[in-house]
């Protein structure tokens, strides 16, 4: 199996799908002549030309709307948001138009459009550039929310997202772009709404997505040296959520820690915790725990920033608390 970077996996997914279907085009800030602010679209302009790889002005509300309109009449746009922090100026288009047009039209119009770009905090980008927006979008019926954790998932899920007939919020990990990973030879897709057990274990379940999967696996490694067997489960798609997989794991381990980069209040972890608390009411040996980003805007200072997002030490400590080892 070839080893590629997360960034390259996304690039392959777009290139392969654009090759396959000329209704697909990529539009966004700097996606073309600049080869992408994060180089995810590298080489696509050269390969597909200005018609299908389109640079835009800084007008997210405008070109997100363009994507919606183009999708309504049969094209299959991929709209890149330079980062999801900037999606907020397009919130009305995503929530009031993208998510609702199918329903308001009585099913006459479908919107095969993917909105993609990096999310989450990186390094010292401060409050306006360090946000996890998945909790906002997952709240909205009509949208699907996908968050791949590694190159294999990134490619397989993006291909499925592009082929899906619904508006998709596809959030990539800004700090994952350089991560290397094996991907299957040739053509493959990963269905939306299907999670994956990233590591088997019997003592406790850690649920995480996007870059938190990496963190959970690292914590699991460390805990393994102390004889604690952690099961790491990645829903991969936030909406629709693979509740079955999550519940099955927790029923097995009896304990659950949810690790989320974003803010706690009404976070995705709250929804997952509620569902597990209910489905596993008689199986839980301890209440479901959440380890989340701090409930405050992200500070610029790097030490403070580090303390505002989950890390290995606090993940390990939370697991031990759940196992009553501390």
């Amino acid at each position, binding site marked *: 199996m070839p080893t590629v970077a997360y960034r390259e996996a996304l690039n392959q997914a777009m290139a392969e799908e654009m090759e396959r279907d000329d209704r697909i085009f990529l539009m966004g800030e700097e996606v073309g002549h600049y080869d992408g602010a994060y180089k995810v679209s590298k080489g696509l302009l050269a390969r597909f030309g200005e018609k299908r790889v389109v640079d835009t002005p800084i007008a997210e*509300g*405008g070109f997100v*709307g363009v994507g*919606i*309109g183009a999708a309504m009449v049969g*094209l299959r746009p991929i709209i890149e948001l330079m980062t999801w922090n900037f999606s907020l100026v397009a919130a009305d288009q995503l929530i009031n138009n993208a998510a609702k047009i*199918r329903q308001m039209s009585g*099913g006459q119009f*479908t919107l095969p459009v993917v909105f993609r770009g990096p999310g989450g905090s990186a390094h010292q980008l401060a409050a306006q550039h360090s946000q996890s927006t998945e909790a906002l979008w997952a709240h909205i019926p009509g949208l699907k929310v996908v968050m791949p954790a590694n190159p294999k998932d990134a490619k397989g899920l993006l291909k499925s997202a592009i082929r899906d007939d619904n508006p998709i919020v596809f959030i990539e990990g800004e700090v994952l772009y350089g991560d290397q990973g094996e991907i299957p030879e040739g053509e493959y897709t990963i269905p939306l709404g299907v999670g994956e057990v990233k590591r088997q274990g019997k003592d406790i379940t850690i649920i995480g997505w996007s870059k938190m999967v990496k963190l959970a696996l690292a914590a699991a490694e460390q805990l393994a040296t102390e004889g604690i067997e952690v099961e790491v489960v990645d829903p991969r798609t936030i909406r629709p959520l693979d509740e079955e997989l999550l519940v099955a794991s927790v029923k097995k381990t009896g304990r659950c820690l949810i690790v989320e980069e974003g803010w706690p209040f009404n976070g995705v972890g709250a929804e997952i915790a509620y569902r597990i608390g209910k489905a596993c009411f008689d199986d839980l040996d301890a209440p479901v725990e959440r380890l989340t980003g701090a409930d405050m805007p992200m500070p610029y200072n790097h030490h403070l920033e580090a303390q505002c997002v989950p890390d290995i030490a606090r993940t390990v400590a939370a697991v031990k608390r759940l196992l009553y080892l501390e």
Partner: protein
Amino acid sequence: MSRIEREVVEPREKARSVDKAQLVHYYHQMLAIRRMEEALAKAYALRKFGGFLHLYIGQEAVAVGAIATLKPDDYVIATYREHAHAYAKGMPVKQIIAEMYGKETGCSKGLGGSMHLFDAARNFLGGYGIVGGHIPIAAGTAYASKYRGDGRVTLCFFGDGSVAQGAFHEGVALAALWRLPVVFICENNLYSMGTPLYRSLSVTDVSQKALGYGIARDRFDGEDVIRVRDRVGEAVRRARNESMPTLIEIRTYRFRGHSMSDAGLYRTKEEVEEWKKRDPIGYGRSLLEKANVPEAEIVAIETQVKQEIEEAVQFAEDSPELAFERLSEFTYKE
């Protein structure tokens, strides 16, 4: 009453070529829209349905004249005040009224209602409730036409109130930058809800905005369906042949309140009466008379329309509602 300066912006008004059949057709359409909305107002008063109901009464010549310039393949997108546009694009009165009644036989299966009429088959891309929010979508459908080279034109209707929205700026700017085949039609009825133009725009000549985007503009009064057709026609040709957008401001007036709940106290009786003298339907009738259309024929139209509406109301009354069990299939496409 603010009669618009006759400062005629290009394109100049052409010597008008009109044939009788067309006049009759436009008159029929305007009248059907008028009677349909009167019937809707009555049904609303009788609590046949709820929600908002924004009547177009007084503005009929705009939708009819503008959409008369289109081919069936062309796209139309509008606001929540879109009953006329849906009808002019070919949506049967039955489907419109049934939609208001919330019936499964409505164009949107009763899920959209008055503000959200949609008709995929006739390329009517919907009525939208967020002021200005549909303008970027219009740029998107025009983008698709250019992408495919299918020669289609998108007509985007919005009110004077939308001009203050960021979505107007972004949608028009992208269309201008990418030279998209779209015509932006601002139906300037002088008020956004209770707010007169001068309290919402520093420059009340909306067409001036075109200067900042470098696109063609036009501006005229909207009571004459033929003028609307001819002037909008110029812009549609520009879009179809040169793939260039145009911003058109058409001055018009709504005779009723913003919606059924609006008492309209912000306008004087005199002002409303003055404008009623320029009723597009009365004007259309005068055109028929000038063209020597026999009175009998005009009366026949009236009768025909009346019957059409009555049947449609009955149809709506008798239609079934969508079952709750089926609702979820409209949130996501399988």
